[in-house]
């Protein structure tokens, strides 16, 4: 497949996809039995989005983020969110340099290719919104000075849905900024057995070598942007999103931003398949991770114990494929 990546390197999409798959395989050596989660994470990275991982402690949320960062030879910073964390602890501060007699900007942990925000719901809303602003704008403004964030830039935030005491759950507007949300889930018995063997004597994360450079990832992201999306497929995405807005079981449907995220992620998903065009399967595969966290169930649906996770598959099942002529 010869898809111009726009970087003038002459590399085909196939080559780039191979390196992406190498990244995926590398991550899977550390995070065992979670191929789907790894693929979504990689998709979000290539779609220039941000990932929200919601799960109980100890299932490998942070490990996934770290592994992804290390295998792509990207800079990675981890922020542990606590209630007393300040926005400047994330963005950085301007400190007065006595020698130079001027203010000097000390970049915060946000200045990395991959930022891992652990337990994001423990920070105050003010801090959360500082992070989310950086996510959206891909730049930091401190004391009137704007500092762009180097691409690729991806925030992987984790959230623990069990211990909700003393937390600030992300409001809908902020959840909407995450391209996808995944749950790691417990590993299977076999995967856990393999994990005991591999993690028992040494840390596989330490042994992990980068398999793709940040430049490779950049090139791949550029290639993903050029993946072809046919008009019927755009219509299909619109129908799917509209169906979430009109469903009586949902109080809040997907936003136009969700439409863009879904299309962008579908492009990346197709590219990971080695395809230079998006098909409805890509959209259907990504509907759950990309849309579910943005939807709010109606009171009736709540009464019937139907969460968006149950409503969404029914909507996907109901919306017909576009008619091709």
């Amino acid at each position, binding site marked *: 497949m010869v898809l111009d990546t726009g970087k003038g390197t002459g590399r085909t999409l196939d080559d780039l996809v191979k390196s992406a798959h190498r990244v995926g395989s590398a991550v899977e050596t550390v995070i065992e039995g979670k191929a789907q989660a790894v693929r979504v994470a990689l998709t979000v990275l290539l779609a220039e989005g941000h990932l929200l991982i919601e799960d109980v402690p100890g299932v490998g949320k942070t490990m996934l983020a770290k592994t992804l960062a290390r295998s792509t030879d990207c800079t990675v910073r981890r922020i542990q969110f606590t209630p007393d964390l300040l926005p400047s602890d994330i963005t950085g501060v301007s400190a007065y340099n006595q020698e130079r007699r001027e203010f000097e900007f000390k970049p915060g942990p946000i200045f990395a290719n991959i930022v891992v925000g652990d337990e994001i719901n423990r920070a105050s809303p003010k801090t959360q919104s500082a992070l989310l602003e950086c996510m959206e704008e891909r730049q930091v403004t401190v004391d009137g000075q704007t500092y762009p964030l180097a691409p690729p830039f991806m925030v992987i935030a984790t959230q623990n849905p069990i211990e909700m005491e003393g937390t600030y759950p992300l409001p809908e507007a902020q959840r909407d900024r995450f391209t996808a949300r995944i749950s790691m889930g417990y590993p299977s018995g076999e995967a856990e057995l393999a994990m005991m063997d591999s993690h028992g004597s040494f840390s596989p994360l330490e042994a992990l070598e980068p398999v793709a450079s940040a430049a490779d990832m950049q090139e791949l992201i550029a290639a993903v942007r050029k993946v*072809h*999306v*046919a008009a*019927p*497929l755009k219509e299909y995405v619109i129908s799917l999103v509209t169906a979430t807005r009109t469903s009586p079981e949902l109080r809040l449907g997907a936003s136009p931003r969700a439409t863009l995220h879904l299309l962008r992620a579908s492009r990346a998903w197709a590219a990971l398949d080695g395809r*230079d*065009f*998006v*098909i*409805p*399967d890509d959209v*259907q595969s990504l509907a759950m991770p990309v849309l579910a966290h943005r939807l709010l169930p109606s*009171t*009736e649906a*709540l*009464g019937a114990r139907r969460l968006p996770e149950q409503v969404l598959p029914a909507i*996907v*099942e*109901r*919306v*017909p*494929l*576009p008619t*091709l*002529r």
Partner: protein
Amino acid sequence: MNFRLTIASALATTAASFALIPVVQGGGWWWAGLGATLVAALVGTLTRVRKIPAVLCLLAGLVAECLYLNALFAGSQSWRGFIPTGRSLRAVGVLIRGATTEMAKYAPPVQARLGMSLVIAAGIAVTAVVTDLIAVRLQRPALAGLPLLVLFCVPLTTSADTHGFGSAFVFCLAMAGYLTLLAADGKSRLRVWGQIVRRYDYDDDEAPPPDTRLIGAAGRRLGFTAVILAVCVPLLLPGLRHHPLFGNSGTGHGGSAPLSLPEPLVQLNRQLRAHSPQTVLTYHSTAQLPPYLQVYVLGRLGTATWSLAPPGRTVPLGSGPLPPVPGLRTGSKAVTVLETISLGSTLTSAPQTLAYLPLPYPSRTIQVNGDWRVDDNTLTAVTVGTRLAGLQYSVSSLALDPSQATLNQVTGPTAAVAGYLEYPQAFASLRRLARHITVGAPTPYDKAVALQNWFRKPGNFTYTLKVSPSQTPDALINFLTKSKKGYCQQFAFGMAVLARLLNIPSRVVVGYTQGSPIGHGNWRVTTSDAHAWPELYFQGAGWLRFEPTPSASPGHPGQATAVPPIYTAPKSGNVSRNGRHASHSPSPEPTGQAGRRGPNKGNLDKLRHLSVPQSGGGAVRQHHQSRPPVGPIALVVLGLLVVTPGAARPITRRVRWLRASGDAERAHAAWLGLRDDLADHRIGSRPSETPRALAGRLRVDLHLTPIEGDALDRIVHAEERAGYAPSAADSALLHDDVRMLRSAMARACPILDRAAAVFAPASVLLPARRGMSAAFDAFDAFGRIDLLGARLRAKVRRRSPGLSTRT
């Protein structure tokens, strides 16, 4: 307080009260009944303000109704116009006694005099009170149907005429009332059932009530369908149908007549227009072409119409020989025809109605059970109360065949038949026409034949049932001079009137033609053989039948079994109708071989052609007008319907493939073909199923071989590229791939599904089914009503936001 049910209950009672219309003449009683219903509703509502025992509610209702009826019918004798006094009660008593006497004396419909109105209004009042009590107070609307049924059954249990469109309309009204009552109750109940159990309390007052419109619409559809079935099924089932024959359906002549007279012309029209012919009688005859069967003789020509001939002296049958044949010279030669007649077993007759026996004219002996009397004027046999269904009787009659000499010697009418020459002045204008037609005819008989020929002349008149059965002079003049379109009634009237204008005594006979032969000398007469014809009187020859109505022939509509009498045939000779019994011919004309095959032979052949060879039950398929062969056409259409889907499938497949040009279109054609094949084999696919997902499923379900799997992948890949990629994939192999997969489907499917794929492919039937369902939706009045209602409600809600959304 359930106002909805109260109103529905009052409506149901009012609708059921329409059922009394056939019983009573005059409309005053209905308004009194409506008032009684309103009083019942009002008092019922008042008694439900406080919860008092149901018995007290009933008593209160009855007392209020008594006051109301007293005020209405004896207000002037009451104190303050409505409090009953001794005088008013006595007046009411007198009225009731009078009504009771009238009811015992007269058959329905009775005149709605004051007493009768009081009794009927009282009946409606009691029904209204009981219905209101059961439906609203006791909350059992379904049971409230019982008092309504009592009201509805009144005309059924009396001998009131309950046929026709009116009864269907009344039935529909009553049903609509009852269904409204049920619907009003259903709506209240659904509100209770349909409540969604809510986990969270939220602004409950503002919450809309559960949407029960769909259930309501379904209920209305069911009710509507039930009513339609109740109205239509009796029309289609022959067993549930009354046969309006021989005077049993006479409407009577008001409440003053103890005995109802039949309405021959009404019956004639009803039978001629019957949806499907019913067998009236079958008979065996010794004649080759038996005579017509007369039932009614209409001898009186009034300003409005023809009515039954004035009765002469009647003699009981069996008490001696039958009266002599009027006008027939003694010693006239005639052949005797013997007939054994069996009336149909489904005939009904009302107890207080004159019934006439179908007889050939002139009959000489009649052997029949029951109390029969014979009129010496018309030789008709009448009875009251004898059961007609299945009646068997034997008749011998004379086959009149007057000689030309007799007919030439006809003298002027005698005083005995002077009544048959009277006509109203309205017809006088036709005298010129009558003379014009009979120019050159010297004798009265020649004139009569000239009249018949004028009516039967091809192209002169058109036979059609699609004309008004009006019997007024104007209508007849219009028929004779302008429209020239009609059926036997107009032809018979026309000829009889013209004959009277020419001073020939005439009358109209209503009865049946000889019917159609069913083999071995047996004949069958059906309702479509009902007929009217003129009889003209010639001194010495008696009453002779003429046939002005055209007979049906290919391309020319007419009465199917009408045959002109032999003595009116042109002078080509004639043959006796009695076949081998004919020992002579009184005609002076030579009777050659050609004459033997004369008009009657031709007529007989035609009748044989019309008849059905077997004599089993069921109506003979013969009509007055030539009709297309419905049966074979229906069979062909049915056959086509069965064969078409299977035949259409390969064609649609081929056409789709041929129309596809380019890789992308061929890929789509292959994919659609695959989907259709799946539908045909009852495997199916969901509209949201992607090609890839479908392929994954098929690979497992159909146990595809690797080669077939590759074929499937090629189709899927081609479809994906054609639909979503910038360029399409190569389509060279797709046609064969689809065929290969079709065989794989056939291999994997059970035999029934395989057969369905060949003979009834769903891909062909589904669009047809969708079309039908769309058509049904388009005609779904209830759905539209619901939609309209919803829109109106939404509009009202928008305009007045303060209103509660609960309705």
